């Protein structure tokens, strides 16, 4: 090795430091994991932004104008393309959070061994999971707005309530991210993920209210909808666009908060089991 003498001194450890006491939840630990995600994001944001803008545009054209030529208005006289445009926000949030966190978590754990490196640093599983979920939630909060912007470009009237949409998306996105992390923690193989996407995530659309109002569905489907986080976000976003409905919306938001808290704890338990022998 060359230059050994030049840097000889620099290698020496500093005198024993008076290290401060580390806490259970450290902002700097969460910040460190977020920095990693942000730097990584800087290398792939273009493709993500492209697909999250193009997809809702295609859906809006297909459903809004395709199906919309048969269905003029829905419910309280909302134009069908506006109904779909607002409903798709929840779908975009789901796809920007649950899917990447399922696959991303598994890849980082199983193939890249990223989490081994992070947990060898002064970061605990709890902080790691929280930071990863926060990151995905921020992404979902932002990208979830794409369908709304596309819908506005196609004629949806902007409203002040829409400013709350990124926040609603963030809350739902946090829950979905934790859901995805938990799935990755409990499933043994990435092949099993297709069971989750086809048996859990796809049916959520049926009773999610994105493409058709659920109050026309049979009663069992309406009951299921009440347990579907997708549905609660769909409602919140529509009300943000067309007028809030007071306590009903508080209820929708409360559901999403509880969903987030539950999945958060489950994800932490699952990942701890997976990462710490």
């Amino acid at each position, binding site marked *: *090795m*060359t*230059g*050994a003498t030049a*840097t*000889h001194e*620099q*290698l*020496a*450890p*500093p*005198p*024993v*430091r008076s*290290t401060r*006491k*580390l806490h259970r939840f450290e902002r*700097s*630990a969460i*910040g*460190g*994991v977020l*920095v*990693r995600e942000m*730097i*990584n994001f800087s*290398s*792939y944001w273009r493709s993500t932004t492209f697909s999250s803008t193009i997809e809702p545009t295609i859906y809006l054209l297909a459903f809004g104008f395709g199906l919309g030529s048969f269905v003029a208005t829905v419910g309280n006289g909302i134009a069908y393309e506006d109904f779909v445009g607002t409903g798709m926000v929840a779908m975009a949030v789901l796809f920007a959070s649950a899917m990447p966190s399922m696959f991303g978590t598994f890849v980082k754990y199983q193939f*890249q*061994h*990223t989490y*081994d*490196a*992070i*947990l*060898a*640093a*002064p*970061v*605990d599983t709890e902080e790691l999971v929280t930071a990863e979920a926060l990151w995905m939630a921020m992404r979902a909060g932002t990208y979830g707005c794409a369908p709304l912007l596309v819908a506005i470009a196609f004629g949806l009237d902007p409203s002040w309530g829409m400013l709350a949409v990124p926040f609603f998306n963030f809350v739902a996105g946090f829950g979905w991210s934790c859901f995805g992390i938990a799935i990755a923690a409990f499933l043994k193989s990435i092949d099993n993920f297709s069971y989750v996407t086809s048996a859990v995530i796809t049916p959520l659309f049926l009773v999610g209210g994105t493409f058709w109002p659920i109050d026309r569905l049979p009663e069992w489907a309406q009951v299921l909808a009440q347990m579907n986080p997708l549905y609660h976000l769909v409602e919140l976003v529509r009300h943000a666009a067309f007028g809030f409905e007071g306590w009903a919306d508080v209820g929708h938001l409360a559901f999403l908060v509880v969903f987030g808290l539950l999945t958060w704890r489950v994800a932490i338990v699952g990942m701890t089991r997976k*990462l*710490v*022998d």
Partner: protein
Amino acid sequence: MPDSPFPALRLRGVVKRYEQIVAVNGLDLDVPTGTCVGLLGPNGAGKSTTMRLLTAQAIADEGEIEVLGYELPRESKQARAECGVVPQLDNLDTTLTVEQNLVVFSHLYRVPRSERQAAIDRVLEIANLTGRRDTRVDELSGGMRRRLLIGRGLIHQPRLVLLDEPTVGLDPQVRQELWALIDRLRSEGVSILMSTHYIEEAERLADTVMIMSHGHAVASGKPADLVAEHAGTEVVEVYGSPAKLAEVETEAKAAGHRTRRTGTSVTVLDASSNGYSADGVTRPANLEDVFVVLTGEEIA
């Protein structure tokens, strides 16, 4: 280094079980401050599990573990903040540049903002990667990646460094280069625990060596002392037909000597004592002889 009131690392009676397997079985281990201890053992001896126990990525079923005076697993976060870890598996972010990888870890290890750039520059210098700071990791050679992996573990100037098989799978000349790097660290007074299954690596770098087999220590001490104690000063290697080798083994055992088999020869240990003689090549005893005799495993 100021005298430290506690050893850098102290393990007592540590046991770690996985279902049916006992990976670590009553391990005692000390790393005195400022020394390099080599953990030598065949694959499956429990070296990697021991390393995981030290970062609380595995939790011991029994026994006590202290890292830099912190009790594990309770104070493991504090301990992790002050020690550097170089994993056996390369887990660098391959789509990021060399510098970006270091930036991430400077955050994870709480390097203060004002010192961050200096810390990164220092590591680039140590790892001899200053000219590569903007190169993506997946474009680096194997040796460069390993240097970065070691450098990454030094970003916060740790007092204790855990090296898990630091040169496994690398070319001999790359290995030499890494040895120089590790030796420099050691000469600076950083305490080091290094697991390895390369005898030469342990012999060159470690102040003391602990030989592990089946989850516990079978011998420990300075390499030269271990050789003297378990293999004597000289050994005789006898070559010949399988029948002849079997005969030599029987004779040697009768005369009170330990032997080890290599593919085509038998090595009779401690050959200079009580006048053992055989037709063979006499050579100085080495750590490999000790390793093989104590663990019953050949070196690949």
